[in-house]
């Protein structure tokens, strides 16, 4: 499967209640592509499609990738497969890791808030921050029992970098209190369930743009766009075009033309369907593209178009 990265499961272990930690390597132990802390992996789940999981190993370990996955009661198939079907020695296919939740290199203090299994991207950031000598703290909110990925958190907790908040045995902490006021050099991050992200967004609403970053597990529902209009979508590579109805998915329109565009979340949070646009006026509705990249790229799953014609490279 040359269009994918082929990986072998070399270890599988429990890493907290309902959480399975999988270590993946190239079949020959070859070095894997370099990843940025906060990156995620799209694994091809047989019969289901790609599913995104944050990498939680140290990015400096270049011959292995580690993910930790919670078994979801309402699994769409991904976590059930990872928990029940995959065994050490099995092969899996992944797309190139993408980072839609990057560290802010220039920040002098990093405050991270994780809800449950949302701790995973921070586990890849922690060793990078520590080696760089940065000031950082990770608050992990969990509901009773051992925390998710407790063995990975323990050394950082011993250093005082990680603070565990068991919300069954103590009142749920106020996110604004954990974050404190905005000050120069601070960067805040949050990964957790939707209610926590809403609280984080509210607590940082007055912060400068980009100073508070969020990673979503699932795409938030996008409200219908009352101003959506039809447009002509053109593939630069072939010159083919198709009429896209008002509010229709650009990704679906591209596929009608036979374009082979990857996708995963189909809700504007994972980055899988990023394509380059060349002419027209796209309306960006994703949550991951930086402003500068929007000048040349769009997320086909959620983007609309304000002009009558849009030319894309796909």
């Amino acid at each position, binding site marked *: 499967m040359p269009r*994918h990265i082929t990986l072998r499961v070399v270890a599988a272990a429990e890493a907290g209640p309902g959480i399975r930690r999988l270590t993946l390597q190239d079949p*020959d132990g070859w070095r894997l*592509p370099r990843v940025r802390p906060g990156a995620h992996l799209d694994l091809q789940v047989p019969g289901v499609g790609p599913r995104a999981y944050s990498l939680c190993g140290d990015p400096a370990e270049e011959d292995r990738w580690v993910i930790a996955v919670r078994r979801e009661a309402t699994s769409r198939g991904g976590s059930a497969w990872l928990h029940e079907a995959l065994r050490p020695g099995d092969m899996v296919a992944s797309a*190139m890791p993408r980072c839609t939740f990057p560290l802010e290199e220039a920040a002098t203090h990093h405050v991270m808030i994780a809800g449950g299994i949302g701790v995973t991207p921070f586990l890849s950031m922690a060793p990078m921050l520590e080696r760089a000598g940065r000031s950082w703290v990770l608050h992990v909110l969990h509901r009773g029992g051992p925390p998710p990925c407790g063995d990975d958190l323990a050394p950082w907790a011993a250093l005082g970098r990680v603070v565990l908040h068991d919300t069954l045995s103590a009142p749920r902490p106020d996110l604004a209190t954990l974050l404190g006021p905005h000050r120069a050099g601070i960067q805040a991050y949050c990964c957790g369930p939707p209610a926590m992200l809403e609280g984080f967004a509210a607590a940082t609403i007055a912060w400068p743009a980009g100073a508070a970053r969020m990673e979503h597990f699932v795409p938030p529902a996008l409200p219908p766009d009352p101003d959506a209009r039809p447009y002509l979508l053109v593939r630069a590579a072939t010159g083919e075009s198709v009429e896209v109805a008002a509010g229709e998915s650009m990704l679906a329109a591209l596929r009608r033309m036979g374009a082979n565009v990857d996708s995963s979340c189909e809700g504007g949070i994972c980055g899988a369907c990023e394509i380059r646009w060349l002419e027209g006026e796209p309306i960006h509705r994703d949550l991951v593209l930086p402003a500068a990249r929007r000048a040349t790229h769009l997320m086909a799953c959620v983007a609309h178009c304000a002009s009558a014609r849009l030319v894309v490279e796909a």
Partner: protein
Amino acid sequence: MPTAPGWNGLVAHLHITPRAFLPMQGQESIALVAGEGIVGDRYRIGVEQGFYSEKPEEGRQVTLFEAEALEAIRRDYKIELLPEEHRRNITTRGVPLNWLVGQRFRIGPCLVEATRLSIPCRHIEEILGREVFNPMVHRSGLNCRILEGGTVRVGDAIRPE
């Protein structure tokens, strides 16, 4: 038929990777197999594991890239592209690759025939996470088929046949 002006080059770096997406790794020597490719590389015919292996190409058994092109990209675009990042197998010095399409030349003991210029691809941008497509246009290296195999080492001479 026009011929290239006199030149005399050498092998500056050697890199292979067994599968698509994986980093290229430097080698002191590589084994070229006539009519097939490089032992351990993703585009060896019969083994294909490369990103473009779905588009079989007989003339892609070994690929070359100029060290001078890396220096030009640094000069013109301020982009530091390393020998393991251009994803060709042999980084050359002193070899006018763009002149050699259709010609035969020796790399160490091996005889190759240049089939076409390499073209840059967006795939490399996906791997590197950097915009290197435009800087690589017109200086993206050379694809060759292997006529006589053997072992190529760093420092070996590259010379017209």
